[in-house]
């Protein structure tokens, strides 16, 4: 057992962080809002190996595991990188062209049922195919068969939504076991993305508090702020351990119950992201309520992900179902 990053993993993290900070800095967001995602971005992400990283080398992948992927997706979360990135990663081995970025897939998880209203398809206008996870397996719907309307004001300005009132059945391309595996992997990556959001919002909030002065001193000196920041840090660190433990459990299921480990990570990382992005808004004060500051992008992406592969409450129920009874 060595539950720390290896040298290779540190290099992986550094590489992806450098890319994300260069390509998706905060200054670039206003421009990005006009078109948050397109084929060009997908190509750049594919070039970084975001989609192919878990494929075997003989299939053009990097041969890495789920724990490695969690490191990468935490970095994407730190910069709220747009696009159906989680779907691309979990479907790269199932659908030709996804790994290289040539084919863009997004999806919906209907394993536990559907939401009220039209199906809300993220980046729907940019997709080649929509993938739906259902209890009986994975279904593929061609983009041309999607009859929907772009939502005028999506919650997350970096996640445009196509509202599709009536979803075609599509073609079943994989069985129920594969659907469960894909959902487990996607939940792990969602948790990792949450971790990145939790980290980034903590760092933004602390940096802001150190620079903002009231009563002739930085507000970072007030215990009311310090203790909020400390709680944000604790939540982020608890989430970090859970997310990487989940990644290791998916890679090596004999070390424990991967379903429980992933659901636990989903619960704590989701709570950390929501808690920290909300406190980030609070610590920024009035500025935190503006469009021009970073906190709201993180809060909104958290909410998108909170409703992606089951909710945190669904995950809590999964954990409860998997508590050992001996």
């Amino acid at each position, binding site marked *: *057992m*060595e*539950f*720390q*990053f*290896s040298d290779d*993993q540190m290099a992986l993290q550094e590489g992806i962080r450098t890319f994300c900070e260069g390509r998706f800095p905060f200054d670039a967001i206003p421009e990005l809002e006009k078109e948050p995602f397109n084929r060009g971005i997908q190509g750049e992400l594919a070039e970084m190996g975001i989609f192919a990283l878990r494929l075997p080398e003989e299939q053009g992948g990097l041969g890495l595991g789920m*724990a490695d992927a969690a490191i990468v997706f935490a970095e994407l979360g730190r910069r709220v990188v747009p696009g159906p990135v989680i779907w691309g990663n979990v479907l790269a081995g199932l659908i030709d062209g996804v790994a290289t970025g040539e084919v863009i897939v997004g999806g919906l998880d209907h394993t536990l049922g559907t939401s009220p209203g039209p199906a809300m398809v993220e980046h729907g206008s940019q997709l080649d195919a929509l993938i739906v996870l259902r209890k009986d397996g994975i279904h593929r719907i061609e983009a041309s068969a999607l009859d929907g309307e772009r939502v005028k004001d999506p919650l997350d300005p970096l996640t445009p939504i196509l509202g599709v009132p009536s979803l075609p059945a599509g073609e079943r391309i994989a069985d129920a076991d594969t659907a469960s595996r894909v959902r487990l992997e996607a939940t792990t990556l969602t948790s990792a993305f949450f971790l990145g959001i939790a980290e980034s919002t903590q760092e933004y909030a*602390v940096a802001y*508090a*150190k620079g903002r002065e009231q009563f002739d*001193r*930085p507000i*970072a*000196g007030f*215990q009311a*702020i*310090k*203790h909020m*920041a*400390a*709680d944000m*840090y*604790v939540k982020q*660190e*608890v*989430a*970090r*351990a*859970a997310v*990487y*433990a989940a*990644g*290791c*459990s998916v890679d*090596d299921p*004999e*070390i*424990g119950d991967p379903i*429980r*480990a992933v*659901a*636990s*990570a*989903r*619960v*704590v990382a989701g709570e950390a992201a929501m808690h920290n992005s909300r406190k980030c808004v609070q610590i920024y004060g009035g500025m935190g309520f503006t469009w021009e500051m970073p906190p709201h992008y993180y809060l909104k992406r958290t909410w998108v992900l909170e409703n992606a592969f089951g909710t945190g*409450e669904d*995950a*809590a*129920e*999964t*954990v*409860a*179902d998997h*508590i*050992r*009874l*001996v």
Partner: protein
Amino acid sequence: MDLRYSDADEKFRHELRSWLEAEVPLHGAPPDRSDWDARRVYDSGWQGKLFEAGYAGVNWPAEYGGRGATLTEELVYYEEYARAKAPYVGMNFVGLRHGGPTLIAEGSELQKSEHLPRILRGEEIWCQGFSEPNAGSDLAALKTTAERDGDDYVINGHKIWTSFAQKADLCELLVRTDPAASKHRGISWVVMPMDLPGISIQPLDTIRGESDFAEMFLENVRVPCENLVGEENDGWRITNVTLRFERGSAWAQDIYELKEFLSDLSILARKITRHDATAWDDIGLRREAGHLAAEADALWAMMKWQLGEVARTGMPGLGGSALKLAFTELNQRVYEFGTRLMARASLSRNDLADLPNGRTVDTFLNTLSLTIAAGSSQVQRNIVSERILEMPREPR
């Protein structure tokens, strides 16, 4: 990153599990908490058995009688110990988790060889004389003085929250040896035998209605200068060594016990009837159990992460404060959840009719002490925000 235990770890697990399965039932149930003599016999007797079997001081160096286990064997040890519901460390807490580790880090060879084996065998009970009525969170404000007189320190002062003072053989005591120095600089760490003249103990009744801790009045107590640990006036640094142990791997066993307790509760909830169904049929209750279990899983993973850091650096890092904060607060929520599950049975602090109602509510009360002791949650938040996040410091 890898969470797989080695074959050697699994072999160790197998041996330990067999031993615990045989020995834990033989040692029987703990005595009534008000029976101090029986408690000492019970706690010391169990510690002696651990020692004989080679399971005492699992993470202590072998040269001082410990097992010298690897960090992963240590984790296996905590997992199996909690699974077997083996006896709580009890009165050996201070010796095993504070005094001993401090001597290992800072004591002289003579001090180590004198005390460490006796602590490990359960022959030497320690208590802690740190806090004072006006030195709680601001521990460095302590006023108990020690003046040199020949080969002795003459000690005067007033300590509080001294657990097991009534039955302890030795006290790890913080005293002020240089009143002229700034408050963090004039403190020393000494080992005080509890049978010296001038020590009087005034038990304090806790929220649980028992006198587990006490006030300790020291009046011209003569402690030999050779009982000083480390350098004179270096006690504050030495204390932080101790506190770091307390905030590092020291919580490992408690975290795993919490995971086990949640398993027990989920089994029990399937038997408790409410609204013509079992408590477990209540989706709200299940989700709450799931949230709590998820956090307990995460903290166990965090413990492994931190022990990975200890392996790299040789010392528990500042992350121990984050773990202490998260664990002690989760612990309260879990036992409050358990107490709610017991419903009106929680009105009794004694177990009734095969229910763990009494011990659950009693433990819930006890968990309230953990966010106060060893640096309150508020002090931990100051530590995290100042030393990790580098936010401005409080006045010291």
